[in-house]
């Protein structure tokens, strides 16, 4: 809006200046006209004074030469008119700024001298030396003419002066007008340019906003697509159905930190291998999103495949570590193992993962051993198999770090988790995993994704034994 403000200011200053200047100069010019008119009047009076003197002289000389009274008429008229004319002359001169000149007084004196020494002797009935008198008369009249000429020169100078003043006033008006016009054109051009620039800027802004909007929409769309894919992957991966087994009970839950980040890279799996053994894996991929989901899928697939093709849990982890290193995947923590429904034995190995919890009937729950580097970080990482001989009714709880690190106090987190496991095991709830999660986060903020998988040995060993025999 600044250029418009500037234009307004310039015009606001310009218009009064031009008007005032115009009025001022108009006054000058009007004055010049008045003075010119007065000058014209003064010159008329001045010429009248000259004419009357010449009329007087002509009359007198005519009469002197001819003695014809015809010449006395003009002489007498001029004689009557000259004094008032010479009386008016100083007033007219004063009006045009030529006051107090001795010339007027000299004119009157010269005429009086001429009348006395030339006209009256020549008009007398008997003239003596006409020629001498006429010579003297010519000299006197010349003096009169000279006075008039000087006076006229004064008047012409004054006229010139007035003309010059009027001309410069006119020049000033022209200059003022031209300058105003130039300034107005300048401001107009500047304002148009400015407006164009403003317009261009606005247009630029609009285009940029549109591009931004489009990009946001695209990002949003991409995000939606990614989220849909990731959600689908997550749903498909995480919520794989758990086996139903006569001697083993399973429960599992996966709770993302938020609906926005539904894909966390956590997973769990339980797969029957033969009649008595179940393979279990649970893990966590560093980060979120599709990439994490892809790594999760790869790790989980590799672990399952490696386990199904044989080998103990440590060998499985070693193989998968190598595969992940080769594919330059993200860091993965995992626990992989087998539960044997016949012998009540667990065998497992961990890779950078928190320890499994074992809850046996009539005992305090305990954290089992853990160790081994995360998968996909270091060559030659070593993993150890942990074997746990357990009892009927025992419950193995596997979980991701979100279940213990929610307060960033892992020591307190372990106590909370152990308490949650005990409470959940005592409830009649079949879905122990969900119960554990609910117990942990009762009155707490869920800070990270949490996956929990529980595997329970049946309380009736006879059923298992019978089946084994069968």
């Amino acid at each position, binding site marked *: 809006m600044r250029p418009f403000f500037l234009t307004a200011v310039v015009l606001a200053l310009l218009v009064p200046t031009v008007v005032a200047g115009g009025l001022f100069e108009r006054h000058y010019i009007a004055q010049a006209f008045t003075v010119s008119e007065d000058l014209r009047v003064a010159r008329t009076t001045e010429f009248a004074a000259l004419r009357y003197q010449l009329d007087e002289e002509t009359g007198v000389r005519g009469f002197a030469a001819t003695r014809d009274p015809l010449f006395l008429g003009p002489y007498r008229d001029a004689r009557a008119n000259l004094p008032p004319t010479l009386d008016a002359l100083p007033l007219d001169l004063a009006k045009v700024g030529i006051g107090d000149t001795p010339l007027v007084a000299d004119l009157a004196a010269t005429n009086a001298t001429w009348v006395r020494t030339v006209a009256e002797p020549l008009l007398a009935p008997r003239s003596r030396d006409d020629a001498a008198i006429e010579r003297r008369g010519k000299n006197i009249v010349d003096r009169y003419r000279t006075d008039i000429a000087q006076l006229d020169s004064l008047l012409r100078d004054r006229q010139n002066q007035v003309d010059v003043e009027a001309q410069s006033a006119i020049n000033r008006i022209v200059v003022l007008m031209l300058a105003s016009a130039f300034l107005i054109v300048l401001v107009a051009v500047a304002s148009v340019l400015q407006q164009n620039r403003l317009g261009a800027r606005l247009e630029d802004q609009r285009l940029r906003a549109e591009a931004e909007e489009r990009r946001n929409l695209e990002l949003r769309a991409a995000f939606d697509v990614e989220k849909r894919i990731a959600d689908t992957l997550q749903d498909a991966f995480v919520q794989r159905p758990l086996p139903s087994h006569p001697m083993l009970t399973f429960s599992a839950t996966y709770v993302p930190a938020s609906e926005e980040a539904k894909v966390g890279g956590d997973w769990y799996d339980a797969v029957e291998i033969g009649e008595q053994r179940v393979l279990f894996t649970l893990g*966590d991929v*560093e*980060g979120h999103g599709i990439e994490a989901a892809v790594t999760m899928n790869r790790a989980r697939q590799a672990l399952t495949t490696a386990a199904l093709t044989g080998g103990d849990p440590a060998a499985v982890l070693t193989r998968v570590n190598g595969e992940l290193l080769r594919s330059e995947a993200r*860091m993965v*923590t995992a626990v992989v193992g087998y539960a044997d429904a016949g012998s009540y034995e667990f065998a497992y190995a*961990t*890779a*950078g*993962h*928190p*320890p499994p919890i074992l809850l046996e009937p009539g005992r305090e729950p305990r954290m089992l051993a*853990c*160790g*081994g*580097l*995360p998968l996909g*970080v*270091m060559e030659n*990482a*070593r993993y150890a198999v942990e074997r746990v001989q357990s009892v009927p009714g025992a419950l193995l709880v596997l979980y991701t*770090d979100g279940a213990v*690190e929610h307060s*960033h*106090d*892992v*020591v307190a987190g*372990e106590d909370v988790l152990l308490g949650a496991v005990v409470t959940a095991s005592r409830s009649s709830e079949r879905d122990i995993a969900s119960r554990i999660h609910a117990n942990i986060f009762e009155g707490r903020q869920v800070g990270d994704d949490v996956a929990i998988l529980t595997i329970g040995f049946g309380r009736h060993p006879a059923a298992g034994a019978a089946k084994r025999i069968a």
Partner: protein
Amino acid sequence: MNPAPTIGVIALSGELDLARRTELQEVLRLRDVHASILVDLSAVTYADSSILAELLRFRADAARRKVAVALLITTRQLSRLVQYAGLGDAFAIYDDRGAALSYLSEAAG
């Protein structure tokens, strides 16, 4: 117990999580002048898995450059987290500064 001048000490403190990962990467950038490095984690109260992963990458980098690394861990919090992550397999971990430094000066020598 005389720390050799070639032992670099990187002292970290507070909660280390994803938000401080870049900072950690800066700090852990290996300085070649040191034959061995002590990473002092005694003032660290928490480290998430991304930080532990960063420490492991640092360890691998150091191993390639033949730089010995020891971790100083004095809190139960961190020693538990480090146990989860299995870092004992990759690092020399000490709960005593003197012992860590003497290990490092020996390794450097």
